[in-house]
């Protein structure tokens, strides 16, 4: 049990401390597994296909399109971060 009883005015103030998040932000964060899966797929292909790997390094967005993915900025960023250099 809590030690200090909470009055209802304070409770209502605390409820107001956590306003809802814009729907678009929520959806973008919720899409993270799909982005991660797409990045896995692209990076796997880059490991097995040297030509694709060269394109990916030279022009990431075109390479994503060629692999059948829309170059969503979140996907571009994830692939770029995970792409081993060299």
């Amino acid at each position, binding site marked *: 049990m809590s030690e200090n009883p909470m009055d209802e005015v304070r409770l209502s103030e605390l*409820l*107001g401390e956590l306003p809802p998040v814009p729907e678009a*932000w929520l959806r973008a*964060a919720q899409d993270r597994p799909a982005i*991660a899966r797409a990045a896995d797929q692209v990076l796997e292909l880059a490991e097995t296909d040297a030509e694709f790997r060269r394109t990916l390094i030279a022009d990431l967005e075109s390479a994503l399109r060629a692999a059948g993915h829309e170059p969503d900025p979140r996907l571009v960023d994830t692939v770029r971060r995970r792409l081993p250099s060299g």
Partner: protein
Amino acid sequence: MTGTAMDWASVSDAEVVRACRAGDDAAWRELVERFSRYVLAIARAHRLGEPDAEDVFQETFVRIYEHLGRLRSDDAVRPWIGQLTRRLCIDRLRAAVREPVADDPEEQGELDRRLTAVDEAVSVQEALRTLSADCREILDRFFCRDQSYHTIGELLDLPPGTIASRISRCLAKLREAYEGRSEPRPASGET
């Protein structure tokens, strides 16, 4: 823990974390939903502007997704997320070449007070989750979304007098739930 009809309200944070780790997309959506307001409230407590708050919000969930496997205690997910978000907020403030918040004791004290209120608010939200869907909805609309009796009445097809008495009744239930809840575990889940 899969399926579209899952009622997540009664599922603990630790169970949601375990389901996320097992690759359950619905659990991940629930985790984002459950902690989204907390993450945003921390960003706002640091007085970040909207674009910075959005960047911190997205980056926090990217890190959570990528590092969830390293969380030592599933029960400690909330403090871990809080700590991660605060760290990203501070990085953002430093990158903006603003005065580091910790250098001004008064400002730091004010920030600490705001963050304490956010943590307290999350405990209230946890108690809210134990109430009926009707109570959750009406309290959320009135206190969190700032909707008027009139708007709520129209949306829920109820007269304003009923809205007022329902809010009062639900608030009393929330108080009971809040006071009857078990204390949260201390932070021990740092990666």
